[in-house]
């Protein structure tokens, strides 16, 4: 705890001072720009943070995900699981019940075992996959594909249901594999580009 406070405190102080610069001032150019309603924002906001607050309702399991993967993902990522050839090999490291815990220098980085938060794969698949028609997977499909990948990577059990409540609670095996533990700006270490 003292450790994470040490990282967070400078960021919080900075955040306060920066926001104060722009806060509570009247508009300078009131004729420009159109106000957005909450409904407007909900219609386009697909950015999912690490706490998963914006995740839409839905559910899926590894078994359902296998069918969707075969239909929508296999054409590029390859057929089968980590025991067969195909690009899926690079999406899977470790095996059911045995998550891979590093190190991640090469191909190991390609799959979700490397990701620090369970929400990242959901957000990325939802926004960018499949490349031929990004955004065409329904929320249930995305939950199912994520469950499928997490099961074969040994991160969840075969019958675990992934939904907007359970997904953010999945603790990723590489959660503590990043430096700094909590990203801060400005960076603590100088020079920053090391």
């Amino acid at each position, binding site marked *: 705890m003292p450790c994470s406070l040490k990282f967070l405190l400078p960021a919080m102080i900075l*955040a306060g001072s920066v926001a104060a610069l*722009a806060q509570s001032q009247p*508009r300078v150019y009131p004729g420009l720009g159109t106000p*957005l309603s909450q409904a407007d924002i909900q219609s386009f906001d697909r950015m999912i943070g690490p706490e998963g607050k914006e995740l839409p309702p839905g559910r899926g399991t590894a078994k359902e995900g296998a069918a969707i993967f075969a239909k929508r993902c296999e054409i590029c990522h390859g057929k089968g699981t980590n025991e067969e050839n195909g690009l899926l090999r690079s999406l899977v490291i470790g095996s059911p019940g045995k998550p891979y815990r590093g190190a991640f220098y090469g191909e190991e980085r390609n799959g979700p075992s490397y990701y620090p*938060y369970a929400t990242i794969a959901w957000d990325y698949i939802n926004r960018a996959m499949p*490349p031929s028609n*990004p955004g065409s997977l329904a929320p249930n499909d995305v939950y199912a594909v994520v469950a499928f990948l997490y099961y074969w990577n040994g991160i969840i059990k075969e019958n675990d249901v992934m939904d907007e409540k359970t997904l953010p609670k999945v603790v990723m095996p590489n959660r503590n594999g*990043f430096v700094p533990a909590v990203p801060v700006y400005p960076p603590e270490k100088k020079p920053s580009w090391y």
Partner: protein
Amino acid sequence: MNSNRSSRRRFLKQTAALAGVATGAGLAVRGQSAQAQHLHGELPRRGARYTIDHMTHYTPLQDYAGIITPASLHFMQQHSSEFPEIDVRQHRLTIHGLVDRPLSFTVEELKQLPSVSRIHFLECHGNSSPAIHGAGDPNLGLPVQFIHGMTSCSEWTGVPLSVLLKEAGLQKEASWLVSEGGDAGKFSHTLPLAKAMEDVIVAYGQNGEPLRVEQGYPVRLVVPGWEAPFSVKYLTHVKVVDQPYMAWNESMNHSVTRPDLRDKARWYHFQFGPKSVVTRPSAGLEMLRGYAQITGLAWSGAGVINKVEVSTDGGGSWKEAKRHAPVLPRAHTRFTFDWAWDGQEAVIQSRCTDEAGEVQPSLAELSKDWGMHLEDWKKTPRPRAIHFNAIQPWKIARDGSISDAMFA
């Protein structure tokens, strides 16, 4: 038609003569006729690489002078296999999240707000990657192009992002942003709010013309001095948030595992360190005896370049090069150094010092800082590295051929 053809012939003849004058001493393109060399000089070509999910253009650093990269030659890294077709009248930029007044702007409205024009470099975080040394092909141009050509420099015109954020009114919890593009994959990236309030531009103009589609038409972010993935193209949404939002790019794709961090990965890279490269003479060109101008570019995310030094004896001794105006913060700076080649083997290289006092490191110094050994670079494939700013040595052989000596 006929007159067009003959005027083109006349133009070629005239410029061929000029090219002969310009390159008669000092440098030639190895193994190519004077005519081919001239054509290469007349029409610098971007190198291009297309894969299933990436399109990359490399700037022909060896072929241009000054510090402004023509928009058509600006490097590009597209995380998608196609360019979006965006109707500028339909395009909207929204500012939402932790703000008092969520707003949507048309491109026309953005152009009515106070504007700035600033000259800044952009650079891919993976530019100069150890992996691409020696891995070129004929479509990618000369080594200085495909190794270091993912940096370019332009005059960017647009509205400061801080103006838009003030219009929306930041709430007190606001500390980070996450921005999103209108390309097929809806590229997203996190940005600290402090940087957004400092100097980030929502750009609609590049070198005096509207952005080109490769560069994010109709609007993009330009985040000066920082790795280019922050500079989201086809900008559609800026969401103000209270924590790093862990988009796939910065939290996964652009993180790097490092031995000095006990096999943990460094993530959330921001600013670039000092970097320079000799663009002429460089690998693939041929040295001729006598006077030779050594020229190149230097830049740093920290601000202006205070000093550029050149060595012609493999780093044994260094002399200061001339920096040419304008020398601008977070922009390419052109340098030149007068030299005469005596026909003996030589290794030429440049290093720069930025306004923060940081000096561009040698490969040995950089390796030490990252907990690596020089031997590690001999592995196949070479270790992955980003923000790679080691000094670039070019080796000149007695026959005048020039090669890449980074890992030699």
